[in-house]
Structures are given as structure tokens and as C-alpha cells.
């Protein structure tokens, strides 16, 4: 193992410890913040009119909601430590089953959209740099403006209306392809904008001038010098988007009637289904840690300066 690799691994280990500590902090914090929202799951069901007062008291005792928060936290922690996520108070199902039911949809939607969006978002500005003619530059700008100005939920509703209701080309509920494309275009626009601006700045640097002085071809200058340097910043953004992909796109799930993590989270918060929300937060913690880790590793592989820290 050479010095580079050792430093790379050391850096990754340090990052991992740091992000685990942050994740643990968030889990603790959210446990208590959640309980500060007025009303618990029993109140909500009471408002919905399905429980009598004595039933409510009995249910609270059963769920342990009448105990002090700190005791609840201790019990919850013991349960989590044993690998059990708990049971949903609202759906009366194990939370692991609930998550297992929604996560595949969320990941398919998020990761496909991110993959397509990243490919487009890197390809478009690179092509525009290689052939700086009007059409390609205009295409980069059009994608950008699209992603900034057109909210995904409005174009989503329009798609459902036109493609499903009027033309009957897709089912109104449960279609994955259209929301993937909508999200991908959104990602591509944001990424293309940042990457293109960076690439134009990098084109003005001395090392690109030095590359020109070496007589390198335009293609080589763009692909070997400008693109990698621009990617160091863009990868950080892709990392953020990756974390987002794990958490689910609520609007798309709602508009296209997809049973995803976003929808589940929304229902859990509305119903004060504490255990479900906490489980989702743990999942998010892991998602963000994984996304950060992947991003950091990629950035350190691209940029040798980050390895020496």
C-alpha cells in the first residue's frame, strides 16, 4: 500500500467517524423535537373520531406515550440497538415491512433519475465546450432555464393530464418512466449550469493556456484538463442530489400515485407516528452518510490535493 492510498483510507475513516457522530446527534435531536409537536398519534386518532377517551388512555399506556420522554428514549434506544425498528402505531405493522414496501420504488425513481440527469448534465456542457456553436450552448441554457422555472409538480400534473387522462398513453397511477424523466431533466439543468460556468472559468486559467501552448487538441484540452477540474465542484452537488434520491421525491410520488418513502413520511408526520418518522430519520442518516462517503471518495480520487489532508 503506497502513501497515497494510505492517506486516502485514513481520510475516509476520519470522514466516516465524523458523519456517524453527526447522524447520531440528529437521531437524538429529532426524537425530542418530534415530541414537541402538539398532539400524539392517539390524539390524532381521537380527532378522527375512532377512539373513546378511555380507549385513548389505554392506547397511550400500551404505546408507552404516558411515560416521561427520557424513559421513552431509553426504551426506543434499547429497541433500536437490538436491530428492531419497532411497529407503526398507525398502521399496526412492523416498520421494517413498511420501509421494505416503499424503498424499492423510491430508489428506482431517485437513482434512475439521478443517473440519467447526471449523464445529460455532464454531456451537454461538455459538448457545448467541444463545439462552442450556438445550438449546443443554447441547449445548455434551455435545460437550465427549464429546470429553474418549471416546477416538477406542475409539469408532473400536466403530464398526467395529457398523457394519462387525455391520450391514455400511461396509467394515471403508478407510472415510473415519466416522473423519472421529469426529475432527470431537473437534475440535468442544475448540473449543466454549474458545470458549464465552471468550465468556462477554467478555460481562462493558466494551466489551460499552458495546455494550448503544448499544442493539444481542443478535445484533449476539454476532456483531460477542463472537465476533470470542473467535476471536482460538480461532484459535491451530485452528492447532495444522491442524498435526495434516497429520501424520495414527495411531489412526484404524490402526483403519479407512487407508494414511496416520501408519501410514507408525510403520512407518518401527519399521524404523529413517532416510531415511523424516527425510522425514516435513521434511514436518511445512513443515506446521507453513504452519499457523502461516495462523494468524498470520488472527489479524493479526482483531486490529489484533497488526499494530503
Amino acid at each position, binding site marked *: 500500500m503506497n502513501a497515497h492510498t494510505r492517506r486516502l483510507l485514513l481520510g475516509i475513516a476520519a470522514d466516516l467517524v465524523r458523519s456517524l457522530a453527526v447522524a447520531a446527534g440528529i437521531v437524538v435531536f429529532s426524537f425530542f423535537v418530534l415530541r414537541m409537536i402538539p398532539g400524539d398519534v392517539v390524539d390524532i386518532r381521537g380527532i378522527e373520531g375512532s377512539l373513546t377517551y378511555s380507549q385513548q388512555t389505554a392506547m397511550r399506556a400500551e404505546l408507552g406515550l404516558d411515560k416521561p420522554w427520557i424513559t421513552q428514549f431509553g426504551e426506543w434506544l434499547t429497541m433500536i440497538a437490538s436491530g428492531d425498528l419497532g411497529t407503526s402505531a398507525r398502521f399496526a405493522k412492523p416498520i421494517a415491512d413498511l420501509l421494505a414496501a416503499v424503498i424499492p420504488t423510491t430508489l428506482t425513481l431517485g437513482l434512475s433519475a439521478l443517473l440519467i440527469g447526471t449523464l445529460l448534465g455532464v454531456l451537454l456542457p461538455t459538448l457545448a465546450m467541444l463545439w462552442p456553436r450556438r445550438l449546443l450552448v443554447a441547449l445548455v441554457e434551455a435545460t437550465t432555464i427549464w429546470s429553474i422555472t418549471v416546477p416538477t409538480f406542475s409539469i408532473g400534473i400536466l403530464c398526467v393530464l395529457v398523457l394519462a387522462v387525455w391520450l391514455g398513453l400511461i396509467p394515471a397511477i403508478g407510472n415510473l418512466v415519466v416522473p423519472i424523466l421529469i426529475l432527470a431533466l431537473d437534475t440535468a439543468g442544475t448540473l449543466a449550469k454549474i458545470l458549464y460556468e465552471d468550465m468556462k472559468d477554467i478555460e481562462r486559467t493558466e494551466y489551460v493556456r499552458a495546455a494550448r501552448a*503544448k499544442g*493539444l487538441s481542443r478535445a484533449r484540452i476539454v476532456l483531460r484538463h477542463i472537465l476533470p477540474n470542473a467535476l471536482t465542484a460538480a461532484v459535491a452537488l451530485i452528492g447532495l442530489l444522491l442524498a435526495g434520491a434516497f429520501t424520495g421525491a414527495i411531489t412526484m410520488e404524490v402526483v403519479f400515485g407512487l407508494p414511496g418513502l416520501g408519501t410514507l413520511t408525510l403520512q407518518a408526520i401527519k399521524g404523529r407516528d413517532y416510531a415511523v418518522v424516527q425510522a425514516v430519520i435513521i434511514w436518511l442518516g445512513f443515506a446521507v452518510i453513504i452519499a457523502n462517503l461516495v462523494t468524498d471518495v470520488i472527489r479524493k480520487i479526482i483531486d490529489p490535493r484533497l488526499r*494530503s489532508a
Partner: protein
Amino acid sequence: MTQRPDTQRPDTRRAGTPAPASGPSPREAAAAPLLAVRDLRVTIRARTGTVEAVAGVSFDILPGRTLALVGESGSGKSMTAMALIGLVPVGTTVETAGSARFGGRELLTLSEAERRALRGRAIATILQDPAAALDPLMSAGEQIAEALPRGLGRREAAGRVAALLAEVGLDGVPGIARRHPHELSGGQQQRVAIAMALAGNPSLLIADEPTTALDVTVQAQILDLLARLQAARGMAILLITHDLGVVGAYAQDVVVMRAGAMVEAGPAARVLAAPREAHTRTLLAARPALRATAAPSAAAPEILAVSDLAVRYRGAGLLGRPVRALDGIDFALEAGGALGVVGESGSGKSTLAKAIVGLARIERGSVRLGGAVLADPMRLGRAARARLQYIFQDSYGALNPRLTVEDAIGEPFAISGRPRAGRRAAVLALLDEVGLARTHLGRLPRELSGGQRQRVCIARALALSPEVLICDEIVSALDVTVQAQVLGLLRRLRAERGLALVFISHDLAVVAELCTRVMVMKDGKAVESGAAADVFEAPRAAYTRDLIAAARALDAPAPHRDLSTPSPAAGEGGGVEWVTAAGF
């Protein structure tokens, strides 16, 4: 780029004009020049109009010789070279006119593809700042390999890279080919850049201020390396520089430029020894000689002193080892005196200045201002801060781009709570003191020249009547003539205000001219300190002697190597055909 035929303004072309007195005979000039530039004009086309950056420049470069293009910033010296090979900055549109024949081919009418084929092969370029000119993500070896001719096998290419690294003297650095730019020193980076330039086996090397960004001892090494490579490979060098000292030692011929036009041209020895034009004389005179001129006055009371000062920076990252940046520094400075702190980059000069004003945490030792120990410079009160002012190297970065000159200079008054009335009068008095006019009041930093901006920074530092001024490389970004003016201003301020200076510089000549005391620093320690005259005339430490020798070598007014006055029998050695632009 549009081209005008080279018959444009034929009156300015006097091809065949005999060379000036001390030059070689016209017959020898018949030796074919490698590059013959005639009445080159470069017009920059901007949205706001056109600017003639180069207005009629003519010169010849013979194979194996060095021609220096000399001038201050904005004189068009870089543009002249870059326009020839199509390396103008991205986004700049230039039109060229005149003629530039390289080995019998007209450069100005080439297409971009044809120029690209020349770049890096027949004509290579080294840029000013090696740290910026290397791609931070690519190893040194990869960057050199990239410049090699296409179609070499992997093994063949690696062999050539190793040979090039050896040629530039980097073969002793372990794993050099696999190192990235940030793992190299400035000198090593420039050597890699030179290896990159040599990869295509060029017959002409354009060196655009190749040593300006480097330390003085490294400068001499790089210039010597270029001279050695030139002798070994017989390549011609077009050396672009603002430094006439460098010209004397390393170039045979020189063209002096000002505002895009040629001022004077001829053999370097002649131009330096007997300049014909006033501008050349100004450039030569503005260059301070390395001679101590001022003596410390014993009578003045001590104003600033530090004893046993040490600063430690915590290392980078979680597990980084702390770095000792300053260790056991002592000095005492009298009122009205000037302490020059010299040393190469990384020697701790700036850390010292920062520790004194509380921009770096002091680990050990103390700072005394006017006899009283400052408890913690990081928590100085406003009144004490006013007595101690700091001026930075980068005058542009030190001024808020949205504040006018009046607001910038008036800001200290506002901070110290001086009433608004009378503030303008005070600002005007300061402007007058630093040699700026009332008309500058409403200007923004970007509307000022570098020298004017540094004057604004000085005026701002003077606003609260400090007793000590800390000047951190404040003239190193300025042209020599402007540098001389700012040094004159500092000398006057010392005399008139009794101001004490801590003057940090890598330039020994500047320190010798201004300072009464000198401290030489290396690796965070003071190698030598004492009265300027003693240190410069009789240096005790070996390191001081090295620094002075390097500075003297670069500053030589006459050539070191007798290449510019070849014997008549040598024939081809000395032939340069001098073409003088009209109007001179």
C-alpha cells in the same frame, strides 16, 4: 483574425538597416533569422472599442540566441509574443497586421489548426506562474508526456519523460514523475514546466516572465538552467521580462517596449551600458542597486520590539502535525527607523508581521509597542490598533471594490468615531501626502493603476496617524518605476512623520535602499540581523551571502557571459538585424 498584407506602412520598415554601433556588421546579419518580425501590430477588439496593444514592433531572433522583450506592465511585450502563436487569452479577439516569418513561414496568416501544430513542437512557451500553469489534477509525468509527439509507445514515452526530467535537473527528486503540482516547490514546478516545453524539441522557446513568481535564489537557478539548455540544444529564446537586470546576464539582444511601441532595440550590452532613449534610462535608474544607504539612528527611542516570538500553526486535517512558523524572533526598532525583513517564501516573514498585529496567535514571546508590552495582540483595543497599521501586498484585494477612494480612506475615521464634518478635508490632506490628486476621490479601485491603489492603501493606513507601519511585500507587484516612486514616498513619510517601518520583502535591493536595519529569515528563524550596512556589506551567515550573491547575479548591469560580442571570425554568432520603428 484578419490579416493585412505586410506592405502596410512600408515607411516603418528599414530592413537591412545596419545594426547600431556596437553591434555586429550588416553582412553577418544575412544569417537567416529563425523568427523575423516586421512592423507587428496587434489590435484588441473589445465590446467598448479597439485598443492597439502592439503598435509596430520589429525584431529578429537568430537560432540559438536570446532576445529579451522588456517593458513595464501594459507595454505589450506579452501580447507581442502571444499574438504570434495564437495564445491570446480566451475571449479576447485580436487582429494582427505586419509580418512574422518563422523559418520561412508567415505566422500571421496561419489557420488555428496550423498554429496548433507549431505550438509545443517548433515553438514552445513557458508561462509566468508555474503554480498556475500546471494542471493541479495531473501528475508531473503525465503533463510532460502529454506534450510529447503523438504515437509513442507507453514505454518509449516514459523513457522520454525521464530523460526530460533529468535534463531539467529533477532526476534526483524521488518519484518526481508521479508527483502532483502541489507536492512540488515553486522552482520544481517551473522546471516541470520547462520539461513540458522541451518535450516537443522546439527551436524557439518563448519564456514569459519565467522567474517573476519565484524566490531570488531559485530565479538564478532557473535562468542558468535555461541558458544551459539553450547552449545544449541550440534553441532560440524569446525572453519576456520587466527586469533589466535579468537581461544583462541572460540575453544577447533586447527590445525595450512602452505602451505597445518599440522604444529602443539593440545588443543587450550596448542598450544597458549606453541607453539612447530616456525611457530605457528611467527603467535602468529605477532599479535599486544592492547597496545599503541608510544608517540606524542611535538617538531615537525604541518604538516596536519583539522578544523570543514564536508562532505555531496547527497542522492540516485531523491528524496533521503542527507547524512551527516562527521561532525565537527578537528585534527592536527605533522611531523613524526601518527594519527590512528578508527571506524566501515560507521563511516566516509574513507570519512575523501577522503575529505583531494579532492576525496570528502567539505561542510564546512578547511584543512591545512604545515601551509597553501588548498583552495579547489578537485583542488589541482600538487606540492601540491605530498606532500599528498593516499594508498588504495585494492592493486590489485589500480595497473593497465598491468603496470609492474617499470612502476607503475615510473608513478609519468612521471606525474611530471622528465626526463626519472635516472628514473630507482630512482625506484630501492624506491624498496630497501620498501624491494622489483630488480627482481621484470618487474613483473605484478598478479605475486606479496598481501604484495608485497602493498609495490609497498607504493613505488609509496613515489616516489614524500610526507610529509603526507594517509593509508586507507592498511594492513587489509594482513596475520598477512605480516601485521607485512608492519607495520615495515611504522614505518621505519616515522623515516627515517619524514613522517606523517594518518592511517585508523578498527583494534585497529594495530593502537595502530603504531600511536601516535588516533581519534575514529562514525556516521561521532569524539567520542574521543587524544594521543594513553591516548585513549587506559584510554578511556573517552563509545563507545571507547566498541570497546576496543570487540578487547580485540577477542584477548585473553587464553581461556575465561574453556571448553578445563575438569575435568577427565567429560570424553567425552575432548577427542581428536591427529594425527601428518610425517615430524614434
